[in-house]
């Protein structure tokens, strides 16, 4: 299967993929800094890379809070309801 070969090939190049990913992250931030902001109405439009920080903090909190609440209260054994 060709698809499988491509995936296996990429899995062999994880280090290169990692570098490509970080380059991509940089490019995304650069893109946000370069786009014109003439029609910025609100602070979310005006601040450079606002959504980068938002995603970093938001994603971190989402994982920490969800997992925390699950471990604290919500999580039960699979046969909890019988």
């Amino acid at each position, binding site marked *: 299967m060709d*698809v499988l070969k491509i995936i296996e090939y990429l899995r062999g190049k994880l280090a290169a993929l990692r570098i490509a990913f970080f380059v991509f*992250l940089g490019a*995304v931030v650069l893109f946000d800094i370069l786009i014109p902001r003439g029609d910025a109405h609100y602070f*979310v439009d005006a601040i450079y890379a606002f959504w*980068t920080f938002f995603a970093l903090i938001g994603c*971190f909190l989402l*994982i920490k809070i969800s997992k925390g609440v699950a471990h604290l*209260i919500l*999580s039960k054994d*699979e046969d909890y309801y019988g």
Partner: protein
Amino acid sequence: MDSWIHPALFFFLGALLLPFLKGRTKKAFILLVPAVSILAVALARHGTYGRYHFLGADGIFGRVDAMSMVFAWVFVIMAFLGALYALHREEDGHHMAGFFYVGSALGAVFAGDYLTLFIFWEIMAFSSVFLIWYRKGNKAIEAGFRYLLFHVFGGLLLFAGMMLYYYKTGSLAFESILPANASWPEYLILAGFALNAAVLPLHAWLPDAYPEASVEGAVFLCAFTTKTAVYVLARGFSGFEILAVMGTAMTVFGVCYAVIENDIRRVLAYHIISQVGYMVAGVGIGTALAVNGAAAHSFAHILYKALLFMGAGSVLYVTGTAKLSRLGGLYKYMPLTMIFYVVGAVSISGFPLFSGFVSKSMIVAAAHEEGRLWLMALMNLAGIGTFLSVGLKVTYFAFFGKEAAEPLAAKEPPLNMLWAMGLTSLLCLIIGVFPRTLYVLLPFPVEYHPYNAAHLAEALQILSFTGLVFYLLVKKLSPEAKINLDVDYFYRKGALLFMKFDEKVVAPLDTLWGELYRTLGLGALFKNADLSYAFDRKAIDGVVDGTAYSVMDFGSVVKRLQTGRIQTYIGLALFMLFAILWFVLVVA
């Protein structure tokens, strides 16, 4: 063309005809029914059809306009894809339930009055539950009953609301309601609709039931109930502030659960709540762009969510489990399924060039345009969670990650399932690349360009940096073989509590009462019995004995008439008949 054929008709007739067909004819028929209904929708012209008058109220079976047509289009397309995915199933009942379900959803979408809507609403609940029961096994049966109870309750809310509404306005017409005019009747109707849209806290039926449905049934379920609810909310309740707030809350609530859930189909079920949250919020914001966004997102969502359920269903179908803690390394055995699932995942996450991007961004942009920055921020937070759980967590732990502990007998699913997934993937891509194919269907004429620099920058930052956090915290997200409590806890444990109350309090009280009666009541009873006995002997027996003697005398007369010969009986009967006739005609 002035006449109109209700597309639901094909599904109802098709369901009734299906059991009479066999073999390949049946398989062809299962695909033909939705195909013909697509044609019926394509030929439909805007207008009002099928007016009727019933119980003093005017009803409309077919309100065909831009708003109902968006939903009708995606419903019939989805019906075809769902039928294709379920083609290998042998049970007629499963296909019939699917047809009735789609037909009633179409009926609800075209309904112009509450009575018609209510009837189809109920058929929808009762037909869809079979798609859960067809999974078979106790868990599915119990989940099905809970699902049904919940929807019957929702139906009652709607019914109570529409009756009060009729009392208040004298009409059952289903029209847009202004928030200022809303009081009890409207809010009851709203609650009935909200229950089907899985608005908090009336949502627990969804993640409780859908993961227990049959592999093929879940694909149907995820498309119709909640989106019919979004349609009726958009039609009746656009601009209701409570919907904007609750919808946004749903978007975040759903993804929080999706982060911690273990079963893929439960992750996806919570994502229905989250995605429907965007639509409900769009309806609540109520501007033309927002309501357009809600309609567009319903369209896109039905396709990519069905695709995700198809992918998860395929995994369940071949491996027998959808639990992430027991899966891993599936890319080797089902690479095509993985690719299709990933197309669904990037669509729901709102990747540029895929369908979710062109629809979800409309709602987020509408919130932005109205200056509702909190709503916008929370929706984007939900977007982070969406990519994190559906896109990254499920893909990584099911298809990559470490190999499952017990070896899985995994392979690609049957060809019809692959074709269904392939076609759905193609549609997700077409909508993403050519958004105008979707936008021309939308109810309001609004200029909107998804692919502008600001939208792209926003989406790319959110998605790629979510990827970065996932990469850093992947260990924290390891699936755990657990379930998580939701508000269904209250009625599932509540029901047990009630049973315990019955066993520990009601039953002993009943026994105690019996004892009391036996010890205290029996003395009086005996006294009473003595009196009755005396009365019986002296008074009743006298009368009864007298009557008995009369009957015996009459009996001996009749005995002489019973000769055992049929001609005697006929003669006697004729004689009696003439006697009665004579009595009636002459004497009276």
